[in-house]
């Protein structure tokens, strides 16, 4: 009973790394001397994991206060550990919504800035960082600075999408969007193959502020990439039910599934949840915002569905210039490598943001969950080679396997980022398991 195992931290993909986090309400206290901040650990790979067990990691999730809110402009300032769950619960009834939301509400404000997250509205709203007015940051030398587009812009833009490597984000000021109601008008369409899917995605993006969808890339041949496209906008006052959307109680995934159970848990879950419900070719109507934005949040800890071996997500963006042909070739390579799954989330992205390492660029983003297997490194390497040749890049917050040379090859902005880092943290005190792997930080 007294046997003490080495404490472990994991990202959402559940591959563990030795380490512990210090949690507390006062970020200025807990980040002092810490080398990394960590929110709710929803990044899949090793972005939120310490490089070595003795590195101090500050867990921010208790720092969850809203410090100011202007009901006229929708601008708020809050501590970095507040969750999107909290922000939505507070601001939706007041007629405001986060300008950008990822596909889960179990993320922190700091995490959304550090990954410069994008959502279904990327083609109209850009990334989260676009809506950030100011940041209060604790630097590696424990000095605290306020930065914005005007004040220390290099620090500001290196922190947005900078995966926690420039400083600990203490407070964030954000401008929200007005919403006409807290309900969503959604139109969805079943699409027979990937060419049509890409065409529909483009049409959808012209008509709707929010689009996204998924395809089944296990099916080969002519119906390769049959899928469903979802497009939506906020429902108008007349369309929306008069009552607010009821708070749904999520279920908790009760235990780890055995490792052999499912090779693609998310895919199967999605198939159940969405595909079979979608009997007709098209459907439209008013739906609950959680069903639209956060379909996977109905089951807490669903990552246990992959068992103890863990999983990863491969997410890349291929530039518009490479055309639909590149997407098809990518899928083809994926299938040949054996990484295909019944769930690929495909979405088009608008122009690149100002965050120095921000992920999206104008083109098509593809995301696939993969269980960890002995061939995972080979699969990721091969996909990365394709992405480099096509002029695309990968999303760090999902990544666990990309090699340093591959990252450099796909990231022309890297030198600018490293210059900002050299200025604000010359000794590279702030680091993560990911920065050791990808940027060659000392272990």
């Amino acid at each position, binding site marked *: 009973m007294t046997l003490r195992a080495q*404490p472990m931290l994991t990202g959402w993909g559940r591959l563990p790394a030795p380490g512990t986090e*210090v*949690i*507390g309400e006062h970020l200025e206290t807990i980040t002092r001397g810490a080398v990394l901040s960590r929110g709710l650990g929803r990044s899949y790979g090793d972005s939120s994991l310490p490089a070595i067990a003795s590195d101090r990691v500050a867990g921010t999730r*208790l720092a969850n206060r*809203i410090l*100011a809110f202007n009901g006229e402009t929708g601008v708020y300032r809050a501590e970095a550990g507040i969750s999107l769950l909290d922000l939505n619960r507070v601001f939706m009834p007041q007629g405001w919504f986060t300008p950008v939301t990822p596909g889960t509400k179990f993320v922190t404000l700091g995490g959304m800035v550090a990954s410069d997250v994008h959502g279904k509205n990327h083609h109209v709203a850009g990334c989260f960082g676009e809506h950030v007015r100011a940041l209060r940051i604790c630097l590696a030398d424990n000095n605290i600075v306020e930065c914005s587009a005007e004040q220390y812009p290099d620090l500001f833009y290196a922190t947005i999408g900078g995966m926690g490597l420039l400083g600990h984000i203490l407070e964030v000021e954000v401008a929200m969007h007005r919403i006409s109601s807290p309900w969503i008008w959604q139109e969805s369409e079943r699409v027979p193959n990937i060419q049509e899917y890409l065409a529909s995605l483009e049409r959808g993006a012209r008509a709707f502020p929010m689009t996204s969808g998924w395809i089944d890339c296990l099916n080969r041949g002519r119906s390769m990439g049959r899928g469903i496209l979802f497009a939506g906008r906020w429902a108008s006052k007349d369309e929306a039910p008069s009552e607010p959307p009821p708070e749904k109680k999520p279920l908790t995934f009760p235990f780890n599934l055995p490792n052999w159970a499912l090779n693609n848990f998310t895919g199967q879950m999605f198939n159940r949840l969405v595909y079979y419900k979608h009997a007709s070719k098209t459907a439209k109507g008013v739906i609950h915002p959680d069903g639209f934005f956060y379909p996977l949040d109905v089951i807490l800890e669903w990552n246990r569905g992959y068992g103890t071996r863990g999983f990863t997500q491969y997410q890349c963006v291929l530039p518009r210039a490479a055309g639909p042909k590149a997407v098809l070739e990518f899928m083809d390579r994926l299938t040949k490598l054996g990484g295909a799954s019944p769930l690929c989330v495909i979405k088009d992205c608008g122009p690149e943001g100002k965050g120095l390492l921000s992920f999206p660029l104008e083109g098509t983003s593809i995301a696939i969950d993969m269980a960890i297997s002995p061939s995972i490194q080979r699969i990721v390497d091969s996909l990365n080679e394709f992405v480099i040749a096509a002029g695309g890049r990968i999303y760090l917050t999902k990544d666990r396997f990309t090699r340093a040379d591959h990252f450099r090859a796909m990231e022309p902005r890297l030198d600018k980022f490293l210059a900002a880092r050299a200025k604000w943290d010359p000794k590279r005190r702030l680091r993560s398991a990911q920065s050791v792997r990808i940027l060659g930080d000392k272990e």
Partner: protein
Amino acid sequence: MKAVVLGGTTGIGRAIAQQLAERGDSVFLMGLDEADLARSAADLKARHPRQENVGFAVCDLEHPDGFALALDTADKTLSNFDSVVVTAAMFASQDALEADVELTRRLVTVNFANTVVFCEHVRKRLLSRGGGRLAVFSSVAGDRGRKPVAIYGSSKGGLAVYLEALDHRFNAAGLSVLCVKPGFVKTGMTAGLKPPPFAGEPAQVARDVIRAMDRKKALIYTPRMWALVMLVIRSLPRFVMRKINF
């Protein structure tokens, strides 16, 4: 509710204050640090469109002479509060307490003696206006004399006996007293300890406490599973308790 929350700037107390504010209840905060209280007050105000400026007062459980003044301010701001929640308390490991008698004195004074004094002030005020609600945090650590929480647990056990008696004595007069016994909750107080199974989150515990206050319950274990765990631990014979390190 017009509620005073002593300890409302951190942990479970913060979550209770936030949830009360979000549903439109009036909240008054008490705690140790003025600047921190002001930040929390701003947070509560932002959480509901009709929330008015949230008042606060410094109140230190080590200084009972300040209790009346702090409660006066609360009464003035809320035009007579009807509910009081006390989450504030000290925690220290058994090792630290055994090594430092002065720390032990402070902890048992804050957690037991002065908390009782604070509750007595509150009781008198609430009874004078026909009753109200008082919710105070004891702990599962007070249910049984256990090695790793010998001193902290005894302070919480004493408090639980007081709260039970308060309920027996004044329930008929309209005072509903709730004794909260949390199991392990992931807050700053337990940071650094390894969470056991059934560890709770502050928001979840806060929901349980508010529901119990609404229903005028006298005792809750939260998360709920701990009622069962403690049932077992309370029934363990002494020779077992002497052996195990739990």
